[in-house]
């Protein structure tokens, strides 16, 4: 890593890896913990991510592709700072937000409260949120449900709200995990339009998708994962070709 351009780096991942230990029987009680202190039940090891090194530059759109179970979602969570890595380190330069369907919202709170909390966590001040509040509601098409708890919302409504918060508030580094599946066709069109118009500029985006056209359209670089290994990172066409040619 060059020191001179370290300011342009949004995420720097060095030697990261992640292993999950899954125990077969449930022993989450004080009694079982104590009885099994010196004799822990055998755990299945799942190597979700194996040693990888790479950087994400500020303002770039990095794609992540790979088959189911190849470690895409784990990788985004590690990069977003939600999961700790087992080895190495991840330097994150800015606030992050992880988006898949229905993100970061409490079902006990109203749409209004969720907007304020999410906005605040993403680094906005209350008065900035006041300014974009109407825009968020309007975009999510939820004007009649501002003070309704979102547990009464339909799945689509929740997804639209979270998408709208992300589009209008947005963290400096966004992780998008298959987000174009939100809402009905009409909302999807609207979402894609906004996404193209205002979003890509100036934001660091990590995009996870199985839809190659989406990846090819937006990403400058693509990482191809296979069984937890980073097989390739770089040129979009090469990565997509590797993914499509792989039939094992």
């Amino acid at each position, binding site marked *: 890593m060059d020191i001179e351009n370290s300011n342009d780096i949004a995420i720097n991942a060095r030697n990261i890896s992640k292993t999950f230990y899954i125990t077969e029987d449930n022993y989450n*009680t004080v009694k079982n913990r104590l009885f099994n202190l010196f004799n822990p039940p055998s755990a299945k090891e799942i190597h979700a991510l194996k040693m990888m090194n790479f950087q994400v530059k500020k303002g770039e759109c990095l794609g992540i592709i790979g088959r189911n179970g190849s470690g895409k979602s784990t990788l985004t969570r590690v990069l977003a700072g939600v999961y700790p890595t087992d080895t190495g380190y991840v330097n994150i330069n800015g606030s*992050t*937000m992880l988006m898949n369907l229905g993100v970061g919202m409490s079902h006990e*709170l109203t749409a209004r*409260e969720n907007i304020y909390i999410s906005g605040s*966590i993403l680094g906005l001040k*209350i008065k900035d949120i006041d300014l974009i509040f109407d825009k968020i509601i309007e975009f999510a098409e939820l004007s009649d449900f501002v003070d309704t708890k979102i547990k009464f919302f339909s799945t689509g409504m929740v997804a639209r709200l979270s998408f709208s918060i992300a589009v209008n508030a947005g963290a400096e580094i966004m992780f998008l995990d298959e987000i174009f599946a939100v809402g009905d066709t009409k909302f999807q069109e609207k979402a894609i339009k906004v996404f193209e118009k205002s979003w890509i500029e100036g934001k660091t985006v990590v995009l996870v998708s199985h839809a190659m056209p989406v990846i090819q359209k937006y990403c400058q670089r693509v990482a191809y994962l296979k069984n937890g290994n980073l097989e390739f990172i770089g040129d979009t066409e090469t990565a997509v070709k590797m993914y499509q040619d792989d039939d094992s």
Partner: protein
Amino acid sequence: MIIRILQNWLGLSNKLERLWLMAKIEFKLRYYENLLGLVWALIKPISEIFIFYIAFEIIIKSNISNFVSFLFIGIILWNFFIECTSGTIQLLATKKYLYSYTNMNKLEIYFSVIASNLIGLFFNFIMFLIYMGIFEHGTYFTWHIIIIIPILINLIILSLGFSLILSNLYILAKDIQQVWGILVGLGFWLSPILYKLERFRESLPGIDFVNPIAGIIINAKNVTMYNQMPEWGLFIWSFAYSIFFLFIGILLLNKLGSKAAEKL
């Protein structure tokens, strides 16, 4: 100039604003969703005072002067501790939506819950002062009452420490909730809330140094009711004791809590 730098920093960062926002919403969730609202915060200590008054003053006749105030101050401090500990054991599970999608610092969640409990404590404390000022005989306020502020800070550190320890152990063992319930039940009777201090010390020598909340309650009674200085030895001990628990709590948060998103 220092003030300006501080203001600048507070103005630029939205951390404090966020804490306050989260505390307010937490508070609203707890009290405003039901019919009586904030009054509930008061009903609990009042009902407890009522029960203990009957038991200890009318039946057992323990003859403590101003027994209601004596109970009042002890019970509101104790209840604050319980709300901050028993009430937060599942914190990492219930507030998962806050940290599992962003890289926010988990400590902020704890601060906001403590702040929301503090709103309730302040409300009860004012009620206590009003009651003592109007209804009790022979009590008056002196400047000693200001020392309640460091005592409350001590209580906050202690509560935060236990809150961190318990909620992170919850990741390992879900039934820590029941274990803590038993400890709390025992702890209440081993705390100087109901008893005359001399009796308490005579019967259970040394317990005021073992029980981390005992010193806080003893000194709070000294400065609010008896216009005395706190017992400095106990005061310093309580502070050190609380900081020790906070230290363990933060250690556990870093060790266990960092994996909360994947384990819970």
